[in-house]
């Protein structure tokens, strides 16, 4: 493997246009790139919050079906209820302004640091739980696109000829419709306006062409490399060549592109839930919170600020990390 020859370079990864090889080298590189490291921290924090929210909202809801856990009092939003209040519970009928104003402290404690929404629910808690939808759908959709696109692109690039034509033309049909219109049409056809799963898959399918093109071009260049020719002469099967040479050479661009695409997918998901697709009340999501904030724009100005900031910070995090990874792993793509 290429890593052995470069091991003395581990201390200076990415220097001189050489890509960083391996996890440790990549991390070391990211540590030196301040903006990429900031992105990494944002991504880790948001992922941590989203994981807690996922366990609390989804896993506990599932566990509560079993007698054992039900008797322990484990139920949906168990953590939130125990520590604070449920993100779906209505606590006050009127809108409370955010912290710094007299209403922020209830009974001597910080009751609603970021105020409440139109139904009196705590905004900070709903922001925390909204991160689950953003990340879950963002990451899952990107995985769908990356895996689907990589398979199509690898097959098209490796076999070439009519296989290439069929694969790439089929994928390009997806390019003929603007993606949001396509996603909206798919969601309404499947009558799955509230289905997260369908949102994940449709948002992912729409990114297939992009990954397919990326992998296809990478495969085309690898296919002609001398070592692949040598492998073919040595009698390796097509599958073995793809697995041993093509895949390792294509991982870096997919990781880079995937990281950047998670940010875009989060923006798309926020837009969809803003329009009322993907999640239904009372599940908290950033886009839906912004949609609600429109109705009470003048009563509670801050309510329309926080969810947008949450989206912005998360997407900036993924973009910084993606740019940093690109510099570290794939200097050829760097701008």
């Amino acid at each position, binding site marked *: 493997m290429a890593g052995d020859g470069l091991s003395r370079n581990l201390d200076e990864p990415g220097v001189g246009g050489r890509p960083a090889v391996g996890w440790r080298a990549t991390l070391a590189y990211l540590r030196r790139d301040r903006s990429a490291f900031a992105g990494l921290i944002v991504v880790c924090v948001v992922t941590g919050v989203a994981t807690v929210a996922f366990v609390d909202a989804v896993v506990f809801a599932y566990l509560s079906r079993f007698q054992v856990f039900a008797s322990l009092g484990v139920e949906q939003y168990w953590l939130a209820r125990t520590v604070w209040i449920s993100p779906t519970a209505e606590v006050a009928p009127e809108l409370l302004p955010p912290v710094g104003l007299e209403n922020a402290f209830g009974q001597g404690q910080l009751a609603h640091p970021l105020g409440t929404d139109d139904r009196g629910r705590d905004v900070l808690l709903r922001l925390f739980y909204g991160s689950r939808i953003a990340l879950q759908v963002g990451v899952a959709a990107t995985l769908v696109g990356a895996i689907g696109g990589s398979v199509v692109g690898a097959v098209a690039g490796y076999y070439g000829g009519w296989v290439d034509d069929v694969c790439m033309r089929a994928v390009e049909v997806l390019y*003929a*419709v603007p993606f*949001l219109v396509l996603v*909206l049409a798919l969601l309404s*056809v499947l009558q799955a306006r509230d289905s997260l799963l369908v949102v994940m898959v449709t948002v992912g399918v729409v990114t297939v062409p992009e990954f397919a093109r990326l992998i296809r071009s990478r495969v085309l260049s690898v296919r002609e490399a001398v070592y692949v020719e040598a492998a073919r002469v040595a009698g390796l099967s097509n599958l073995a060549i793809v697995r041993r040479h093509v895949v390792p050479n294509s991982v870096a661009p997919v990781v880079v592109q995937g990281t950047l695409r998670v*940010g875009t997918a989060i923006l798309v998901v926020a837009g969809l839930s803003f*329009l009322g697709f993907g999640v239904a009340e009372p599940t908290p999501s950033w886009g839906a919170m912004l949609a609600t904030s429109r109705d009470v724009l003048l009563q509670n*100005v801050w309510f*329309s600020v926080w969810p947008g900031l949450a989206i912005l910070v998360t997407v900036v995090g993924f973009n910084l990390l993606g740019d940093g990874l690109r510099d570290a792993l794939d200097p050829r793509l760097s701008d």
Partner: protein
Amino acid sequence: MGLTRYAIRRLLQAVPVLVGLLTLTFVLANAIPGNPVEVMLGPSPSLEEVARIEARYGLDQPLAARYVTYLAGVLQGDLGTSLYFDVPVTQKIAERLPKTLLLVVASYAVALVTAVPLGIVSAKRHNTATDHVARVVSLLGVSTPSFWIGLLLVLVFAYGLGWFPATDLVMPWADPATVAGATTRLGVLVQAVTHLVLPTVALGTLQMASIARIERAEMLDALSADYVTLARAYGVSERRILTRHAFRNAQLPVITVIGLQLSSAIAGAVLIEVVFGITGMGTLILTGIYNLDYPLILGTTVVFGTAFVLGTILTDVAYAWLDPRITYGEGA
């Protein structure tokens, strides 16, 4: 091969794509669960009423027959009758399309006017404070949801300061009698511009940021190219190098990005129309979806798709026109 022939060939290549688009939307729209007749007539209509409505909209025909009728209709510019509005879909689209086009074109114009200088300055002052600020601005631009920018603009500039209205667009060619706050042609124009400012800025930010990023990268690339070094060695002024040598060569990828941004510009337009209550194509397709109005969904998707394909061809042709290296070869 000349540019005209290249353009014609690109248009011909788009025909199968458009047929595919029509087929796709037809299949999608007819797979919609839920009966549109029920939506129109309420929960328990009489059988005669159902039959009457079904016959009127051709819903009693077999699927294949409906497909042929549909394709023949589209070729004659007939997209069917909207179930919700009870008028021809083409009439609705003709009302709505100009607003969306105005919004998208204006946002591209704003984006280009701001992004190109931003990218150039950023590249020229590489790694200075100006460059860092410009990079942060474009990073924030590509990371911020356009509809949120729209909401904040409404909050600050419409409700807070009252500088611009946050209502439906006014078309510049509208009759002064129908426009509030305008009595003359000039008044209508002023109203049109003030109504356009906030949605355009909200929608243009993403385009601006993406174009600025690529402009900066390409200018950096061009400024370090051999021909620039050579020009410097010959004593060509920096200004001339920037405007004559580097700038021209850096613009081709920018055109590609403009084409690639078209899809997100349309997506952004749908969201921005909702935020500002603009009665354009975006709110039209949403009305169709919320009301199971399948001729309307079909028609708007087809028009969106066609506009998108034409936009892509336009950028391809612009690219070929600007790049002397492209020979319009048959295999391209």
